[in-house]
């Protein structure tokens, strides 16, 4: 069997893995993290099923569920708790955008629940301005601590050093970016 045939065989095995990259597959306990670095601008995106964050995907019915939703928003807004960039990169947060379904009345991002599938997703986007982007070697991800229901993060990065993907788990929550590997 030549290397070529072996690789073609392996590529068949990889179908299941590749499928998730194609679009927003909704899988409870699994979320996506993305990082793009363009000069000094670093954009971090987080995209998760709502269930992984608060444990339900319907409009909050009880006080506890309303509180969980508010708590999730507060946690996501505190970027340092969610994603921590190395101090050497000297990053300052320039904007944060949290999109949670079932927000308070009047919330401009409120309507994000997908009624057809019965699923809803939460999204967060953090934009940083980093004085020393070359020092951006890793991201310490605090999302597992904040959201215990989260079991896996597919983390994809595109930086000046290249592109890469790693799978993060609660026991292994340090994301090494392409430059550091």
């Amino acid at each position, binding site marked *: 069997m*030549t*290397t*070529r045939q072996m*690789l*073609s065989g*392996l*590529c*068949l*095995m*990889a*179908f299941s*893995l*590749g*499928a998730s*990259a*194609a*679009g*927003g597959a909704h899988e409870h306990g699994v979320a996506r993290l*993305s990082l*793009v*670095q*363009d000069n000094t*601008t670093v*954009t971090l*995106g987080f995209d998760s099923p709502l269930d992984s964050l608060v444990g339900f995907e319907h409009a909050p019915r009880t006080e506890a569920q309303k509180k969980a939703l508010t708590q999730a928003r507060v946690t996501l807004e505190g970027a340092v708790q969610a994603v921590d960039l190395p101090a050497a990169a000297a990053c300052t947060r320039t904007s944060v955008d949290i999109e949670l379904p079932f927000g308070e009345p009047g919330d401009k991002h409120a309507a994000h629940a997908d009624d057809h599938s019965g699923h809803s997703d939460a999204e967060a986007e953090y934009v940083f301005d980093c004085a020393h982007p070359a020092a951006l070697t890793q991201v310490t991800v605090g999302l597992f601590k904040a959201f215990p229901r989260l079991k896996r993060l597919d983390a*994809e*990065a*595109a930086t*000046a050093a*290249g*592109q*890469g*993907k*790693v*799978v993060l788990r609660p026991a292994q929550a340090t994301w090494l970016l*392409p430059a550091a590997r």
Partner: protein
Amino acid sequence: MRLPLWHLTVASIRNRGLATVLTVVAIALSVSLLLGVERLRNDARASFANTLSGTDLIVGARSGAVQLLLYSVFHIGDATHDVSWSRIDALRSHKDVAWLVPLSLGDSHRGFRVVGTTADFFAHVQTGNRQPLRFSAGRAFDGVFDAVVGAEVAASLGYAPGAKIVLSHGAGEFAAAEHGDKPFTVTGVLARTGTPVDRSVLVGLAAIEAIHLDWQGGSRIPGVEIPAQFVGKFDLSPKRVTAALIGLERRSTVFRVQREINTSDGEPLLAILPGVTLDELWRVVGVVERVLLAVSAFVVAVGLAGLVATLVSSLSARRRELAILRALGAGPGDVFVLLMTESVLLAVAGCVLGVACLWALSAGIAPWLMAEHGVQLVPRFVDQSELVWLVGVVAAALLASVIPAWRAYRYSLADGMTVRM
């Protein structure tokens, strides 16, 4: 009086020449296998990672991400579907897209893949660490029947600018599928890159259309023959391509554009980040790699077991020798150290021979690997990670040799000079 132990070690190894040599060879082979697997793994990864740089997205028909990467960049496997030119054209004028290089695969030339593309290929495709493609001779294709060949194609088939070549339909197994009526002229030869580009024949998209004018469904239409000089009268604008490489204006839009393409309506398309998909591939291949590594680690264990077996079986023949050593004043500890030194010396000799073996082997197969599989095996004696493995092998040998050393120690305490053999 202290005995010169190392002298005794050398003498006693020499005394059992053949068995010792065979043991060392077994260890050497197992060490070359272990390091070879590790080296091939690292070098293959480096070669794959160096194949494409500066490309933000690859777009093809919606299938598997890894499959798209393998057929578009590495020329492994085939596309299940292609993409209509109108979609590619629309993507080219997308506001975030800086450049787009279409790829049309499916023909070959004497075993080398033919890639239909545009002259942008030479301007935008980069390998290694942002290294642009360079011409070692000639220039890019211009006319319909012009072709640019990669360094490996030129070297193995002896092509230089001006050479006439004939392309074949498909993988080129059947002579009947040759586009013999429309020969191409080589206009340029690319400098060696160590990537699949070296094994490619590059032609314009119009050329791909032209050679298939009188073809339908993979074979020549009977009775229809359009001579090369008349193809200009036909519409040679591309209808379908296999995939496209895309560079973006700003990297920050890469995930947004990817999502836009992947969720677009109409003809289903798939956009991938090549580096991300390569990591997905390595995650799958990683399982196989670990199995290979485990197997070669076991082979090393077998080699070391052979070493222990040789030493243990030699012990009963050496009981008198050990007793004499004791009588001459060697302590039981000295006998223990003697045996340990012997086996570690053999293990180190095995490692050294193994590394030499691997060096010779990799120097021997490197050109073939490069030509056949595009994997650049860097010839070297040992690097840091391999040194760790070697230290591990010697440490394991040290641990394993405690068995014969301990037995010798026991014998030397219990046996007298009157031992019966």
